[in-house]
Structure formats: C-alpha cells, structure tokens
C-alpha cells in the first residue's frame, strides 16, 4: 500500500488557522485533540496527525476503490513514537512514518519496507531524482490513470505512485 502527504509548515501557517474555533473538532477525535494540546509544539503535532490521516486515506482509497469523501474522523490516529504511528479505518489499520523537519512534515504509509519516498522543491527536481533512481535513460513520466490515481511510467513499466505537493515541497512515494 502507498499513500503520502506533505505539509509546508510556512504555507500552512498563512493558509489555515487551525486554532480557529471548532476547527480541530471537525478533524480530530477528543483523544487526538489531547495529543495535540499535550504536545510542546501543538501546531506540528496537528500537522503530523493530519498528514497521517491523509496518507492513510490515499492508501485505503487506492486499495478499496472508494469515491472521494471528506471525513477526517473516519481515520483515527495512534502515535507509537516520534516517527511511527498507526491509522485505523473501518476495522483496518496501516502503519505510517512521519518525517518532521523545521520546514515541512511528511508522512507516508509504511505498509511494506520496499517503498521509497523522494522529496524535492519542484516537479522537475522530482523527475530528476527519479532519473537518478531508475537510470538516466528511464525517462520517467507522471501519469494519471483511472479514478485519477497517479502512476509513473519508467521505460515501458507502469508503477503506482502516491504524490503530494504543498507550498515549496513535492514528494512521491513508490
């Protein structure tokens, strides 16, 4: 399973006021809200939970083929340590890994140890990184196939990927 999500913390600060009344209640369970407010950095903790939910949503949507919904509550987060967590959805759960930098927060579903993530500052740079990964002649091409799900075409192979972009950051998981 693949699914990822990145949040540019600087952009998030200008785009969304997560401390606006009722904002968190719309997104987080009471337990999750406690995780946010007991953290020394509530903002980062909020975006960690958010990116965990988003990446699990993408993974389950691909797996179970459901149409788009907006229900952050259906995805319930548990934190294991600073990086690892679990997201539960309708009786299923997936493990997630979160990378926390000063400028962004990146979560991805870590269902299998064989998936890789690349993070870059532009789409061109991301494609360049893919060329380095798969060889200069691989000519990676990003495609959107049925239900708008992303894939990359590498030479003649088509590989499912998850992509995310926010502010200055672009990431791909495959």
């Amino acid at each position, binding site marked *: 399973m693949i699914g990822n999500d990145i949040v540019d913390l600087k952009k998030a600060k200008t785009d969304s006021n997560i401390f606006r009344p009722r*904002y968190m209640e*719309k997104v987080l369970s009471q337990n999750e809200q406690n995780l946010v407010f007991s953290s020394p950095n509530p903002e980062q903790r909020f975006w960690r939970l958010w990116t965990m939910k988003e990446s699990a949503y993408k993974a389950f949507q691909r797996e179970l083929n459901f149409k788009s*919904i*907006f229900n*952050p509550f259906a995805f319930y987060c548990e934190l294991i340590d600073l990086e690892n967590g679990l997201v539960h959805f309708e009786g299923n759960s997936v493990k997630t890994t979160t990378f926390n930098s000063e400028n962004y927060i990146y979560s991805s579903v870590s269902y299998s140890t064989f998936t890789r993530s690349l993070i870059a500052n532009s789409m061109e740079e991301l494609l360049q990184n893919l060329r380095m990964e798969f060889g200069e002649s691989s000519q990676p091409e990003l495609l959107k196939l049925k239900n708008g799900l992303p894939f990359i075409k590498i030479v003649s192979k088509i590989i499912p990927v998850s992509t995310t972009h926010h502010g200055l950051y672009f990431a791909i998981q495959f």
Partner: protein
Amino acid sequence: MTAEAIQDKLKVIVQPYVNHQENFDNLTSQSDFINDLQINSANLVDVVLDVEDEFDIRIENDDMEKMISVEATVNVIQKKLKSK
C-alpha cells in the same frame, strides 16, 4: 432559500480558498472543490466552518463527508435549513 441563492452565497465563501481562478469564474453546481477549484483539503474545513457561520447551522461528520462539490454542499445546506 433556493438552491441558486445558496450557491451564490457558497461561491462567496469558497473564493478565498480557490487555487484555480478560471474554474472558479465558470463555477457550476457540478464543480468539485478539490479537483476543479483546487481547494486544499485543510481549507475544506474552513469552508465547512464558514458555511456553518453564514447559514447558522451545524454540520455533523456524515454530512461533512459529502461536502466535496458545490451541488452536494448546497444539498446539505438546504437540508439543514429545512430542519431548523
């Protein structure tokens, strides 16, 4: 309130969160918030909260999950206004 009147108010609400001006200018009941208007998902929460404030209603999760297009959102608002 008619669906048209609700849609007009909704158009004003979503405007600050839109990232695709052309699709916003040509907004129809079929417009999708994420794919067409490119509203980022964190701002979908703001749309829901702004709708609650503007129409003085409260939207629960099972209604919120449908609010990904103009038409679905207008339907949720209309239903809530009727039960007020």
